[in-house]
């Protein structure tokens, strides 16, 4: 019995890739094992923990719940790329300065979720941040520093725009 394979063309972090992978292989594993984007972390593989959160065609999604074939032609962004973008760099700096991570395993997913929240809501409350990030499991921080980092980023962006922080 040979493993059924599938050819998948996708764009990751601005680069075009074509991979031939088992049809049952999920996108998070393709990104990690076939393309080397190990910033995509796999924590639970059933969509609960959020560690594999990536951006597909601009929207956040869980890499462990998507098969390779479903991502044919998609534009995917992972933490390696997003963390270097001007629009996310302030969030990255806030995570560092607020110590909004400890072991760091949840952090790529957490940053990508937080970036999506800030794209939707410029002035969130702490409760809104907690609600939005409630699909991303962190065992280390107790979440408070993460909330602090998101609030700091939001305030910084509003101040930049001349709004009162």
């Amino acid at each position: 019995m040979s493993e059924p394979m599938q050819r998948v063309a996708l764009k990751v972090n601005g680069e075009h890739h074509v991979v031939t992978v088992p049809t049952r292989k999920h996108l998070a594993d393709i990104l990690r094992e076939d393309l080397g984007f190990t910033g995509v972390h796999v924590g639970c593989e059933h969509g609960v923990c959020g560690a594999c959160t990536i951006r597909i065609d601009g929207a956040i999604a869980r890499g462990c719940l998507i098969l390779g074939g479903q991502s044919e032609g998609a534009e995917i962004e992972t933490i390696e790329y997003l963390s270097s973008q001007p629009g996310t760099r302030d969030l990255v700096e806030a995570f560092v300065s607020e110590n909004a991570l400890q072991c760091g395993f949840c952090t790529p997913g957490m940053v990508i979720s937080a970036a999506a929240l800030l794209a939707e809501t410029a002035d969130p409350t702490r409760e809104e941040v907690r609600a939005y990030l409630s699909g991303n499991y962190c065992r280390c921080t107790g979440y408070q520093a993460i909330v602090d980092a998101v609030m700091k980023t939001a305030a910084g962006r509003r101040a930049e725009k001349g709004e009162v922080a």
Partner: protein
Amino acid sequence: MSKQILRDPIGKSVPRERARRFVTGRGRYTDDTAALRGLHAAFVRSPVARGDILEIDCQAARDMDGVVAVLTHAEIAGLYQPWRAGNTLLPEMKAPEQHALPPARVNYVGEPVAMVVATSRALAEDAAEQVFADIDPLDAVADIETALAPDAPLIHEDCGSNLCVILTSGNGDYGTPFKDADLVIEDTVDFGRHTACPLETRSMLAEYDPSSEVLTLRISHQCPHQLQAELAKILGLGQHRLRVISEDVGGAYGLKQQLYQEDVLVCLAAIQTGRPVRFVADRLESFASDNHAREHRVSARIAVTKDGRITGFELDDLFPIGAYPQYPRTSLGEGNHVLRMSAAGYDIADFRSRLRLLFQNKALIGHYRSVGHPVACAITEHMVDRAAAALGLAPETIRLRNFLSDDSYPRKTPTGVHLHYLSQHACLDRLLADMDITALRSEQAELRKQGIYRGIGIASFVELTGTGNGFYGPGGIDVSGQDGCTLKMEPSGHVRCMPSVTDQGQGTDTGIAQIVASVLGVEVADIRVLSGDSEITPHGGGAWASRGISTGGEAAWQAAQTLREQLLMVAGHLHQRDPETLDLSKGHVVDAAGAQISTTAEVAHICYFRHDLLPDDMPTELMVTRHSVPRVQLFQATNGIQAAYVEVDTDTGFTRLLGHWVAHDGGTLINPKLVEEQIRGGVVQGLGAALLEEIRYDEDGQLLTATMADYLVPMASDVPDIQVSHVTSGTAEGVLGAKGVGEAGVAGASGAVLNAVNDALGPLGATVRRLPIAPRTVLAALGGAAPLTAAKTSGSGR
């Protein structure tokens, strides 16, 4: 050289170097390492809790494409040494032999019975499904009552009983009447089984080079040197031919501290195949085969006088540890800490306790952050609150009357724990001020009139941190109580720092760099810390018992002092000054007035390249190793106190956390921000234990909580902001005066919530005696729902 005062950047909240790597997705966790020609392991695991292996037929699996090896006990017997988790200080303890794969009988659901190695994980899993394991099921021992029953099936027949060991402690015989009491209250609290649930599951990659006979194991682990020593013993390899690397670890909390069957099997497979072999547990495997923790049934009695003096305390802890004691540390630590740390902060004349470790057909119970302390804290503080309620005293009043006085140290507790210095009164004062208890109580009273039930719970704890050799070494267990640090100054003046303690996100690397920077007068950015590699770093304990800074930091301090003296000696000769008058500051050698004489880099450069400028007999090594081990006392005992404010919905049984406060004594804080985040993270783990987390088995020992949809962990929206305050008192050991902070958050959180919920339910005459406090537990206490029976919840129902 005179003792330096602690100076910048000690005490500064500098950010962590690893933080930037992690946020940008550049972490190097075990499974991030690629391996050419690498193989993947999958395990055939027992579907029954107890049964006899009749046959394991692997032929169909062996015939499959991509399968390189299928191993059962028959294939590996004789290639490794089975192990026994015992402690020679307790010769009566039953320590059954444990094999990498069981020869005849399985003892818990999820126990590996065969291993498949194939070219991909998916193919290995396919092949594992084709292994036919014929196991004849036997009656399982899945709860406390069954384990204790006189006619119970024997899990280990050669042990003669399901009782692993009985320990007693205190200054009297267990069960004797209290000497002096107006009132004696008895109660029992059940603690559910939970698990550390790190986000990165256990993962490993073993590579064996037959030409040099060197085995390299990358593994997500807290104690690389301990594992190196154990695996060398089990596999029959020289310790110098075994390298254990734990670079970035995605959460550990005690779960990744011991030895697992898979660790041995993956190494054996790498040796047999000569190819890299990888195993990454999936989440289901984690729930089934990771260490669990904390299942206890603790009965306690507290004796008080009419004026609120606690005169006696007695407890009886039934602690089912699963199928085997965990190797190599055993499962004793958890129960032993319950025995010794319960009521440790109270001035109680009459104290005695008993602990019984029981075998069960369930996964093993090992260590989880704050080993034993949360149970000790919760049972003590529950009983103290019950006594206060019976006497009509406020919770803080009875504590003030009975806490050991802050000026009464050093002293020993009735269970023999040496306390060098605690600050319980100072911590309580701070806590009450932070939470504004008067305002909180009036809000609570107002809302009660509207049928809203809020509760305030206080829980105080004493904790053991930075433990030395005393328990493991004399017990014949090769767990290092000492930690070391190697410093190498490069010719450029930059420093490589190699501590034996490991960093799983605590920020230990950065704390140690701060200590070294302070002594050597360099920037933290001038220091590169390399930890988690048994081949590079000095042998030491790694991450356990909150020792990173209290023990590892002390070693770094000593190493840096020695390097500093060396540099100043050379500088003194070069500049014709007395080295005693010189110091290192801001990358320079400075004189007593602070004037810069030369750069430190120039001195380092001369040490390496210009011996012609120095006397022949002047030593010029700029590489130093120093070790530290607690000697004056076995550990740095410290203390803290927490408070929770909750609202209980009496219709649904849901408990909502509204506020949480911590006052803690961490001694010298090297990096306050890292300390606070350590404590907050721990608190949330304790809140999970209090309200959400439970590993459940049915009466046949079947695992019922096998996914993260069944096993609930706190998410961001489940917890409030947590106020952390610091109280600083002295220590007996070392220069730094830093005490451990890693366990404190977990230690007090669940006790505070238990007391808060019972405070909320007080007016309704209901009491909760079971953790986690699930809605059905609250409803059962209120009389509105049938409680779960013991048979349905692994023997811990109420």
